[in-house]
């Protein structure tokens, strides 16, 4: 590694540094996801639909889930039993989870009926499905972490199913400490990682286009060129319908 002593900031992309691991990683990351693709100003015109809002709403709900979960983790799992503030934060945590699943399932339905795995988007679809499944596990261990009769009842009901699967030897739903650690460390980590990869894959592969309309006659163009709309503009504005934009 060479050290630049003439300038206060590191200088990137010197030919002699090209073989370094950091340079290779940077080139690979910027090549796959350049800033204009990572944070684009425009999206294809077919993205101008409410159905695309629900993925973002899911992300927003997840952010509230994590933030309120951090507060609950700082104050401890029994805080919400003895404090009205704790009860409020716990309710925010619960209801943001409700919103998270509500919007995620609508996002899932929308993507399912669009067959959103088309066009080399299988990894995007699969990371979404797996993050949904892991989120269910995170929610279930949350119910086991309530420290009340409800969590006791749920754990004694769940143990038979878990034991029948053979996983009970290492995953004991009546072990509060283990379930709490799964709920506040392991499963949130996996969910956030999967969601992060999912969002990066959406940026990498783009939003799946609609199905092409059937051509009327042999030789007809299958679909018109896809227009784009900038954020904050009216897609049905004075320039005409979005399908007619160039």
């Amino acid at each position, binding site marked *: 590694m060479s050290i630049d002593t003439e300038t206060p900031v590191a200088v990137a992309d010197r030919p002699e540094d090209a073989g370094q691991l950091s340079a290779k990683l940077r080139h690979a990351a910027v090549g796959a996801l350049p800033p204009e693709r990572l944070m684009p100003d425009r999206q294809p015109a077919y993205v*101008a*639909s*409410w*159905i695309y*809002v*629900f993925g973002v709403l899911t992300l927003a709900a997840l952010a509230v889930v994590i933030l309120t979960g951090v507060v609950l983790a700082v104050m401890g799992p029994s805080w919400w*039993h*003895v*404090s*009205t503030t704790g009860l409020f934060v716990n309710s925010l945590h619960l209801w943001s989870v409700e919103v998270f699943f*509500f919007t995620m*399932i*609508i996002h899932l*339905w*929308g993507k399912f009926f669009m067959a959103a795995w088309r066009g080399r988007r299988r990894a995007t679809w699969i990371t979404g499905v797996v993050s949904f499944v892991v989120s269910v596990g995170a929610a279930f261990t949350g119910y086991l972490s309530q420290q009340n009769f409800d969590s006791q009842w749920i754990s004694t009901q769940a143990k038979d199913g878990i034991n029948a699967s053979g996983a009970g030897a290492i995953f004991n739903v009546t072990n509060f400490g283990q379930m709490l650690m799964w709920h506040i460390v392991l499963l949130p980590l996996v969910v956030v990682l999967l969601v992060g990869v999912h969002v990066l894959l959406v940026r990498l592969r783009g939003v799946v286009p609609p199905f092409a309309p059937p051509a009327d006659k042999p030789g007809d163009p299958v679909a018109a060129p896809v227009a784009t*709309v*900038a*954020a*904050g*503009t*009216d*897609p*049905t*504005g004075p*320039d005409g319908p979005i399908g007619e*934009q160039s």
Partner: protein
Amino acid sequence: MHTVPAATSRLFGSLVNLNHPGHYVHWGFIQISVANLVLIGLMIVVFVGAILIPFRRHGGGGR
């Protein structure tokens, strides 16, 4: 343990009385709580609305 003032609970309390055992719908081997059934119905309504309701944004800006 702190208690919630009556005015606050009236303001932020539940719109429906939830202080009772849950109501369930039995249909053959299917058993589902009314709360979950309502939630699924709401999701279907929102899903259909998301597809059918036009998506309009504020005007302005180049294209």
